[in-house]
């Protein structure tokens, strides 16, 4: 029997999963290169959303202009974040420091610090409350197909996710900078010894990852119709779970796991209270870590 409500739940879950996937792509890219979690990724997402909303409120330009502007903001945010929270920990170039876990893991806290400061500053400037996206620019119009309800935002997010994923694969496998990103991800010391400019590569990775994070932010803001300073936190955590389940540094793995998480949560809500469906996500994370310690798609040599 065709159950429209159940299929509708799958649609709901798929779109939530895509939101997680959009964030997870940038997250995983940066992790792959640095082998450290960038805790400020959720704030890049939030800053991208706010930048887009400010632009829309002021001039209401077409969507493509908003996205280009947000990409620029994301690039600057990524560059600034790297400069502030990551670069200072790479100033020692001797082999012991380069191999030091402590050095690398200190950036875990410095990125967390940056994320808290950015969030509090945004809260001070724009207020802690939700801000609406002007209604004309929202991507919340219903699109009825048979018994199923979609919204314009779901199609845009789907398109963006496909484009980002394909664009990133192109960048990684068809360009020189992609080659150096893969080299640094694979073996940072080795890459350095063969003459790759690792500093430049890391900066490029942050710029690319943050551009994706920022674009994800504005698209999701248009889809939900609002922005708020803590908007990056909850989906950021789910994206992190997807990244870990996918094997930490596999971008296709993270995307698949993100969509799987979204679907699992939606289907779980059919049987449990919404509060419990969160448990499903973390339950899957636990199961993955117990039975597949390297993640579902991890373990291969190539780390991006």
């Amino acid at each position: 029997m065709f159950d429209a409500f159940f299929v509708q739940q799958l649609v709901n879950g798929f779109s939530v999963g895509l939101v997680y996937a959009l964030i997870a792509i940038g997250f995983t890219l940066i992790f792959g290169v640095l082998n450290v979690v960038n805790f400020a990724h959720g704030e890049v997402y939030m800053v991208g959303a706010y930048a887009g909303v400010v632009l829309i409120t002021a001039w209401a330009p077409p969507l493509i202009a908003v996205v280009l502007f947000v990409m620029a903001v994301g690039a600057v945010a990524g560059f600034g974040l790297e400069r502030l929270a990551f670069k200072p920990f790479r100033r020692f170039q001797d082999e012991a420091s380069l191999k030091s876990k402590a050095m690398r893991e200190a950036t875990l806290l410095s990125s967390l610090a940056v994320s808290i400061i950015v969030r509090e500053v945004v809260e001070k400037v724009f207020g802690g409350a939700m801000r609406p996206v002007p209604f004309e620019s929202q991507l919340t119009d219903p699109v009825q197909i048979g018994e199923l309800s979609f919204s314009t935002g779901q199609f845009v997010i789907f398109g963006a996710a496909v484009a980002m994923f394909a664009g990133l694969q192109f960048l990684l496998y068809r360009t020189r900078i992609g080659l150096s990103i893969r080299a640094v991800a694979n073996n940072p010391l080795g890459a350095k010894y063969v003459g790759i400019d690792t500093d430049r590569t890391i900066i490029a990775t942050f710029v690319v990852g943050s551009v994706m994070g920022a674009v994800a932010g504005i698209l999701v803001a248009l889809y939900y119709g609002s922005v708020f300073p803590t908007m990056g936190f909850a989906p950021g955590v789910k994206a992190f779970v997807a990244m870990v389940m996918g094997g930490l540094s596999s971008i296709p793995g993270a995307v698949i796991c993100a969509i799987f998480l979204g679907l699992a949560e939606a289907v779980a809500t059919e049987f449990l209270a919404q509060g419990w469906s969160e448990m499903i996500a973390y339950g899957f994370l636990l199961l993955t870590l117990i039975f597949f310690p390297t993640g579902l798609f991890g373990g291969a040599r190539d780390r991006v």
Partner: protein
Amino acid sequence: MTLSKTIRGALAGVAVGAALSMAAVPALAQKTIALGYQAPLTGEMSQYGEVFRNSATMAVEQFNKSGKLPGATVVLKFEDSKNDAKEGVNIAKKFVDDPEIVGVLGDFSSTVSMAAAQVYAQAGLPQLSQTASHPDYVKISEWQFRNITTQAYEGPFVAKWALGEGKKKIAVIAIQNDWGQSVVSNFKDAVEKGGGQVTSVEFYNPGNRDFRTILTKVAREKPDAIYLGMFDEDGASLLQQRRQLNVQIPTYATSSLYSPKLITLAGPSSDGLKLSTTFASDSPEPVVKAYVDEYQARYKAVPTMFAAQAYDATNIMLAAIAKVGPTVDRKSLRDALAQTAGFPGVTGETTFDPQTREPTKTLARMEIKGGQFALVK
């Protein structure tokens, strides 16, 4: 010590002495009475704390100017609870240790208010929350008061309204916390007593902003109506997603959704929402008009129901202080609060039951029509 240092020290001593004696003159005439105010001033609930602070500051300034309490000045001491029960308890301990404080306003949520209430109950400091509506809050001790009608009053009111409009099968969506639980239990009992049926109860975790799965699940049961127990941001997200999912089930809500913010955020999606409230910012009543005008002049925003609750709570506290006079202490303030009767506030006439300390107010029925809250006659 050199001579010049001694001279300088002596001069400084004289200066301090002079300053002290100058300060002492008004201090003799003007006693300071402090009220503690604990509310979330940062974090996710900071917007509520902000409007409480606005309203309370305004109420105290008006009171000090009015000369209702000759010989004393009332000051407010704010502390940020971040909507965290642990913080709430720490603040309560701090307020209890402050000898100037005779009464406390706040906190925002039932959860934090009830955590802090344990401290106030032990130390004997009157606490008046503008919003804590959990049924057990005032039962903690004789020191707890509130200026908001509880769900025990509001739930049956809306249930009767919905049943009267022929809505027999109703689904409930509420936030998963102490307050949300009381929304559901009171409403459900009233609906079932009135011959209706609650088809499903859906709780969601605080912080969740995607209601599509819950709405889809609720729509499957095909209820006649949906009842929402949540705050304005969650409500706005839900209403937008309801429109987008093309779920056209009539929707009722708790008074907590009565806020201009809801319409700003949800836009046309909020049309048709029905709710009860004690405060209407466009009410023609002179007390309400005066309050709304001054609030707008000061803070460039229309006061929400939350702002109005805090304004009345502060004024009820101040009226009780004025009744006792400048010699007010914690015990006499409590007794005066318990006698509050027919207080003409902006959220309707308020009377505290001297025994249960539960307030009674008049509720109005509202519906959103064309982007405006309109009174339902």
